């Protein structure tokens, strides 16, 4: 029982990271209607920035905030310079996928170019202490990840559902043309959406780093899990990203330890789950069916 709880909390801790990445994916999907395959690499890149700031002497929390700010700027610039000129993702889905793949390759290589191939280490935001829960030792870091996740999710929900700018973002995601006709500054809104998503990536990466070491491959697998999370939860749902992320985290950390055949294939249980979900309820657990009148 103790071991199970141990795995459970590890899974929750990792799941929180997938959920954080997933939140960023949902923000971009809800504001621009596309899936950013480069989300993980952008997160890795901003995590390196956090590391650089920390290495230069800044306390970790400040470095994180610096990284988030840098991430915001990078995200906004990427949207403005790369994503926007390509066109409407609804009309040209392949072009948009290609561009994000290009960014995937680009950010990865750029990180290698700037920071080299060595692994760097990043400290724990919440220190190395542990707390006893139900008989198992749980790292504060894992609990901290869950806490930050909850805060992020709440902040985003509030922004999107209760603020004017959130309304503008949802409006632009649904119908950018009409939004412009209503006076919504569409381009600025999109830039903000991308900036927010990239800033979120920095947070996710900073939580991943202590266990994995910071190198260019930091976010490749977490990104897949994050996609699995939002597929499970619904591309357009923040709640879905959170629930999906935690579920995927538990599945990938708990199941392979108990079911032998999955031992070396941690992605497999998550993959099977999303297959089932997509076949049975394609919009995800919390997603909304798109209304279209033919």
């Amino acid at each position, binding site marked *: 029982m103790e071991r199970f709880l141990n795995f459970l909390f590890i899974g929750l801790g990792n799941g929180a990271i997938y959920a954080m990445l997933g939140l960023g994916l949902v923000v971009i999907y809800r504001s621009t209607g596309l899936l950013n395959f480069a989300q993980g690499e952008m997160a890795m890149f901003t995590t390196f920035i956090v590391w650089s700031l920390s290495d230069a002497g800044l306390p970790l929390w400040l470095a994180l905030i610096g990284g988030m700010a840098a991430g915001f700027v990078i995200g906004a610039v990427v949207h403005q310079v790369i994503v926007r000129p390509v066109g409407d993702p609804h009309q040209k889905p392949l072009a948009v996928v290609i561009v994000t793949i290009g*960014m995937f390759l680009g950010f990865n290589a750029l990180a290698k170019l700037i920071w080299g191939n060595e692994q760097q280490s990043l400290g724990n935001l919440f220190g190395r202490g542990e707390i006893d829960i139900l008989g198992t030792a749980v790292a504060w870091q894992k609990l901290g990840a869950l806490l930050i996740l909850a805060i992020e999710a709440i902040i985003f929900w509030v922004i999107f559902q209760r603020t004017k700018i959130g309304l503008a973002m949802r409006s632009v995601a649904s119908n950018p043309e009409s939004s412009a006709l209503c006076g919504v500054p569409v381009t600025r809104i999109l830039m903000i959406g991308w900036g927010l998503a990239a800033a979120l990536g920095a947070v996710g990466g900073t939580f991943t780093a202590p266990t994995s070491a910071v190198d260019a491959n930091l976010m490749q697998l977490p990104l897949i899990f994050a996609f699995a999370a939002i597929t499970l939860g619904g591309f357009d749902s923040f709640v879905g990203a959170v629930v999906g992320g935690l579920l995927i985290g538990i599945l990938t950390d708990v199941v392979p330890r108990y079911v032998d055949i999955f031992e070396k294939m941690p992605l497999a249980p998550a993959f099977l789950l999303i297959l089932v979900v997509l076949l049975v309820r394609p919009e995800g657990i919390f997603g909304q069916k798109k209304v279209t009148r033919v």
Partner: protein
Amino acid sequence: MSTASEPIAGTSAPLAPQPPVAKAGRNWLSIGTFGVFAIILIVLPQVLNAFWTGRVTGWIPIAIAALGLNLLTGYNGQISVGHGALYGLGAYATALVINEWAWSFPLAIVFSAIVCFGAGVLIGLPALRIKGLYLALVTLAVATLFPQVLEQFSDTTGGSTGLGVTSPELYRGRIRDRSIKFEAPEWTGLASDQWRYYFFLVVAAICFLLVRNIVNSRAGRSIIAIRDNETAAEVSGVNVARAKVFTFGLSSALAGVGGSLLALYLARVSSGSFTLTTSLYFLVAVVIGGAQSIAGPAIGAVFIGVFNDVITPDLPEAWKPASPLILGALLIILMLVAPGGVAGLIRQFTGRMRTRKLVNSAINNPSSGGTT
């Protein structure tokens, strides 16, 4: 319906409907270009040394896999980021039948094609309900899962060390497993690397011709119609489900053939050859070459090949890790400037030349045709 508010059709976005192109057979420029390419392809091994012939041979499996991906994504509109897994499946299938049962190379290739066709159908069935970006995601997951599956069943697959593709040989009085070789028959007078090249070329030619014939046939038009507007295709009598699943199967079979050739080429299959990056590079090849043309995948494969084998090794050491950056930047610029890839550019160019000819002939013969 008011037409003034619709943008001009025939824009060169990768999945946008293309303006009708005159049949290639009637176009001298097109025949000429094709002829020149064919000659280059045939003469190549005579001109290059063994090392470079070998390198170029290695590009052919990529071309065939890209051809398959193009059929699925370019012509049928189903986005797949996971063709690397099918490529790998084909490679391992070939390794298996050669190692275990000493099948001949052509039989092994056919086996891989059949196995991958089946796998493609299996994936294509649920793909009927999973569309667009969701499908891209699922295939992305498949591509990431594949190396993990190989690791899990490393007893059979050899994991990251992989399997050698071997055949038993009598060597110094004992039967040993040695890596397979391509031996050119006496009467051809070719070196083994040249023979291998022509063997691969023939397989590729068969595949490309097959796809060309399908695309130009009625089945092909159905496939394309589904990409442009699935609902409209359905009500026009196209059996959408059957066409989509079949296309998935065929596209996978082609990837399998490519993988099979890769196994024959490397004489070894290991998980490192079939990662997510492999799938991404196929997609890159399709897009750079041009997503809606037959020659596109070949152009794209050459591009990837040149990029990996010619350009990257020549970069200064410090720049080497940045080489995917160049590829990435190129992809982005391409999407902005020439979404139809190289083939699209060529099509635009020849289209413009043809228009100029029409305009010139209209100017020179004012009495023929024209509207008042």
